[in-house]
């Protein structure tokens, strides 16, 4: 382009042709990479454009000169293409570099893996080969040792067999001799070489006939079939007949097949001879034993007869173990077990549970030797479950070659029972006497104590020793002494004579107690031989008797002196008892009234009324209290009668007991009170204000009509209400007034708004003022609290209205005041400005008037001077007035006053 010489375009022309080949190759190489393919397509397009641009600039240089070409180049389009091409190629290279790095990494990894695997496999192979080598070496070494061991064992066996005194040979199943011991060689006189391989059955080392040969052959065959054979054979050897014991032992292989036979021949000729002589001796001995046994059997038969037919139960038990070895008939009959059962049991089994342990304890070897024949009395259990007491005699024997014990049992149950009964009877009587509350004592004829029951000490306090030391005068009451002494004297005269005696006896505390009882002369009774005292302490009953007497006297006095009428009637209405008051009222003596009924003194109607109450009382299970009207001298009087039944021990009524009190006066007072109460209630009921009454604990009792009207609900609806527990009262602080009233003072509350809905009523809320009056009885106790309610709802509403009105008025006043203040301010401003404006002309008038006086004094006549002075004075006055007005306006509303 610069020179315009085409020689410089030579390389351009070549490059232009080559570049597309390279790009094409690049595309082929990256055919599997889509992003690179896109880039190469762009590169191809850009390269094409770049070449076109270059060609265009060359053409312009050639056709229109350098300036035009320069202008085209100056457009920088070519540079732009080139920059893009560079960027694209850089991207392609970067992408490929990344791929290259990745692939190199993979390659390194693969080579590393291969190397490691190679090393590991190689190591494995080496280890395996080493193991194999070691195994082979170990095997060869073990094998060598085993062979040596086998050889040594073989030698040992050979030595062992050689040392045996019997003829021993190893024979094959084909009856060939495989081995023989030295004894065989010595016995036959042949060498080992001569014997080995020869036939065992045909061998010339012994001489035998056809029968022996046959037996040996049969035995050998049997051994070859795997069965060991042992038998004795008489053989002619070295000129003498010897008894040989043959043993043919087959030796088996692991599969169970006979490998070879070990043949053994033992010379048992001397042994046989000894055996024969022994058999002879045994036969002789047997004969002797037989004879002896017969004798023993006879003797045993005799003893067995004694044992079996003994009337006492007997048995033999084995030691140790106590198993029954034999029992006699008496034992079987007495105990109920049959022989078989006995023989299957032990001595423990016929013992009750509680004695089993003791039996075992006492029958240990240590005790056995120490104990004698009599083993005491034991409890035995019969088959039917009854327990008997048996006295046991035991004797150690040898029974059927066993250590045993012969037992003889004597049943002593009845004897023991009788003894026990006797002991119990004695115990019972002793207990009876010892625990008796009565004194039982026995003295001799001199009244010396033989026996004294423990109750004597309990009652008198004296022990036997103390009692013995005391004389009769010290013991008996002086008043009773002579009586007691006389009885003690009289009783000795007649045997079996009994005396009843009641006297006072001094106790240890020094008081006298009453004793009552019998004295019996038993001196002639062989079993007793004494005087028997049976005394009872009756002090308490004596005291009770006295107390009863006193009580009866007291009751009688009360009944007689009572102002009430007291009487007892039979169930039929007849008077059984009456008091003095009864007689006084009817001016009759008691004798005239007792046994008579009410019908004898009163009219039929009155008597009927009394009788009816009596009947009601008789059937009632409690006392009845009723009023009764009784006509008397001063008119009909009212009595309050309390009547009850008197019952016997079985609870059956037998009389009616009554107390009637004259309540005529009290009745009158009560009527008056009732009338007063009615009036009072009526006033409350008619009271224009709501009134409510409460009990002293605050519970509502009643309310009046005004109350009902005010709250618009029934007075029954508030039953159970308690003013002291009213939550509204407590919350509003009114409970202070309530509590004050319930404490006994009159209380008046401030007006309050009460909401009945809070206690479950639907009446509207009302403003109330309450006044509480406590009502007290004569003792000053509060009996009732009266609440008077003042309904101030309308006042409250009026107050509320006035309040609202006042508030609106106040508001209006404030508004008016504000307006006034504003008007005043405006007025002030106006006054101030007007004053100022007025002063200005006045100053002018004064000024000009002064000029007239000073400058024209000679020209003015007196009148004119006077008028001038008047003008001036009035103007000054006017000025003063305005000044005052100004001052006034500055003072403001506060200055008005």
């Amino acid at each position, binding site marked *: 382009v610069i020179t315009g010489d085409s020689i410089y375009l030579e390389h351009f022309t070549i490059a232009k042709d080559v570049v597309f080949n390279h790009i094409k190759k690049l595309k082929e190489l*990256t055919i599997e990479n889509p992003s690179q393919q896109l880039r190469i397509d762009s590169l191809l397009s850009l390269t094409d454009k770049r070449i076109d641009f270059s060609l265009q600039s060359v053409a312009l240089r050639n056709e229109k000169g350098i300036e035009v070409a320069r202008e085209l180049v100056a457009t920088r389009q070519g540079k732009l293409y080139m920059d893009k091409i560079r960027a694209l*190629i850089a991207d392609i290279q970067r992408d*490929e570099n990344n791929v290259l790095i990745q692939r190199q990494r993979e390659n390194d990894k693969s080579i590393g*893996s291969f190397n490691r695997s*190679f090393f590991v496999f190689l190591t494995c192979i080496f280890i395996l080969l080493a193991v194999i080598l070691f195994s082979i070496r170990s095997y060869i070494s073990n094998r060598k040792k085993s062979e040596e061991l086998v050889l040594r064992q073989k030698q040992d066996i050979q030595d062992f067999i050689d040392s045996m005194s019997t003829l021993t040979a190893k024979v094959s199943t084909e009856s060939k001799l495989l081995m023989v011991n030295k004894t065989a060689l010595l016995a036959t006189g042949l060498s080992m070489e001569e014997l080995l391989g020869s036939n065992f059955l045909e061998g010339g080392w012994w001489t035998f006939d056809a029968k022996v040969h046959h037996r040996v052959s049969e035995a050998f065959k049997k051994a070859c079939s795997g069965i060991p054979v042992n038998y004795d054979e008489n053989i002619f050897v070295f000129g003498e007949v010897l008894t040989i014991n043959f043993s043919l032992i087959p030796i088996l292989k692991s599969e169970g097949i006979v490998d070879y036979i070990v043949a053994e021949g033992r010379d048992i000729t001397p042994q046989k001879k000894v055996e024969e002589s022994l058999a002879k001796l045994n036969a002789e001995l047997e004969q002797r034993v037989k004879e002896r046994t017969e004798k023993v059997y006879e003797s045993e038969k005799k003893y067995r007869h004694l044992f079996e037919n003994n009337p006492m139960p007997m048995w033999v038990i084995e030691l140790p173990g106590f198993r029954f070895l034999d029992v006699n008939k008496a034992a079987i009959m007495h105990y109920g077990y049959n022989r078989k059962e006995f023989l299957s049991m032990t001595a423990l089994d016929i013992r009750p549970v509680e004695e089993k342990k003791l039996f075992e304890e006492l029958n240990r070897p240590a005790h056995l030797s120490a104990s004698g024949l009599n083993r005491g009395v034991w409890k035995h259990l019969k088959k039917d479950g009854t327990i008997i007491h048996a006295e046991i005699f035991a004797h150690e024997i040898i029974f059927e070659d066993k250590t045993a014990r012969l037992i003889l049992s004597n049943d002593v149950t009845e004897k023991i029972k009788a003894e026990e009964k006797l002991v119990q009877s004695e115990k019972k009587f002793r207990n009876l006497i010892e625990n008796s509350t009565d004194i039982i004592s026995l003295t001799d004829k001199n009244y010396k104590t033989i026996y004294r029951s423990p109750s004597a000490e309990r009652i008198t306090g004296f022990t036997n020793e103390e009692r013995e030391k005391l004389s009769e005068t010290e013991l008996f009451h002086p008043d009773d002494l002579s009586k007691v002494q006389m009885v003690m004297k009289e009783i000795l005269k007649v045997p079996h004579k009994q005396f009843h005696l009641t006297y006072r006896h001094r106790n240890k505390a020094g008081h006298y107690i009453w004793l009552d009882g019998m004295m019996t002369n038993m001196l002639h009774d062989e079993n007793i031989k004494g005087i028997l005292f049976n005394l009872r302490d009756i002090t308490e009953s004596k005291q009770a008797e006295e107390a009863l007497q006193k009580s009866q006297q007291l009751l009688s006095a009360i009944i007689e002196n009572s102002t009430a009428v007291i009487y007892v009637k039979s169930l039929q209405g007849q008077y059984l008892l009456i008091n003095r008051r009864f007689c006084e009222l009817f001016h009759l003596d008691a004798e005239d009234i007792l046994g008579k009924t009410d019908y004898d003194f009163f009219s039929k109607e009155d008597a009927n009324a009394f009788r009816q109450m009596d009947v009601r009382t008789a059937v009632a299970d409690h006392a009845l209290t009723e009023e009764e009207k009784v006509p008397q001298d001063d008119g009909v009087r009212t009595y309050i009668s309390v009547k009850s039944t008197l019952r016997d021990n079985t609870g059956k009524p037998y009389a009616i007991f009554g107390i009637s009190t004259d309540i005529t006066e009290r009745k009158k007072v009560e009527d008056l009170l009732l009338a007063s109460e009615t009036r009072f209630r009526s006033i409350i009921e008619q009271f224009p204000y709501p009134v409510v009454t409460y009990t002293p604990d605050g519970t509502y009792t009643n309310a009046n009509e005004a109350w009902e009207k005010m709250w618009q609900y029934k007075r029954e609806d508030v039953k159970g209400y308690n003013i002291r527990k009213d939550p509204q009262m407590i919350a509003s602080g009114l409970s202070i007034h309530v509590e004050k009233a319930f404490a006994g003072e009159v209380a008046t509350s401030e007006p309050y708004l009460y909401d009945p809905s809070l206690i479950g009523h639907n009446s509207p809320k009302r403003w109330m003022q309450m006044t509480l009056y406590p009502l007290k009885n004569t003792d000053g106790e509060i009996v009732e609290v009266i609440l008077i309610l003042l309904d101030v709802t309308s006042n409250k509403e009026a107050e509320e209205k006035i309040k609202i009105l006042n508030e609106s008025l106040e508001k209006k006043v404030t508004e008016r005041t504000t307006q006034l203040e504003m008007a005043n301010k405006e007025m002030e401003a106006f006054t101030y400005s007007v004053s100022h404006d007025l002063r200005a002309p006045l100053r002018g008038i004064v000024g000009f008037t002064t000029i007239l006086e000073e400058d024209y004094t000679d020209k003015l006549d007196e009148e004119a001077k006077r008028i001038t002075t008047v003008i001036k004075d009035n103007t000054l006055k006017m000025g003063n007035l305005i000044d005052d007005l100004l001052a006034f306006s500055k003072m403001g509303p506060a200055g008005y006053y």
Partner: protein
Amino acid sequence: MLISFNFISDTPTFVRLAVHAAIGFIILSGAIYFAQPQLENSISFERKLFTSFAATIIVLIVFSVFSIFYSNRNVKTFELIKHTNDVINEAKETLSITKDIESEAGDM
């Protein structure tokens, strides 16, 4: 086989560890079982020898298989590297020729 498996990079590490431990335990159990004296005595020497050689041959076969596998993989990666280098060289050449076009045409 177990060791070869351990070196295959595609398998996750934990899976490799697990398989390795599992097969290791199985081999250990087998070894403990066959270590019983009565079993050890009942297996003849010839059998043991044969087993050992068989194990060696198996290891060699496995090794051969893995060798072929690794060789192929290595060849492939070499080829890929070479291919990438060719692409880079071709790109460089293209850039060089394009520069020639630019300079030879006389653009400023």
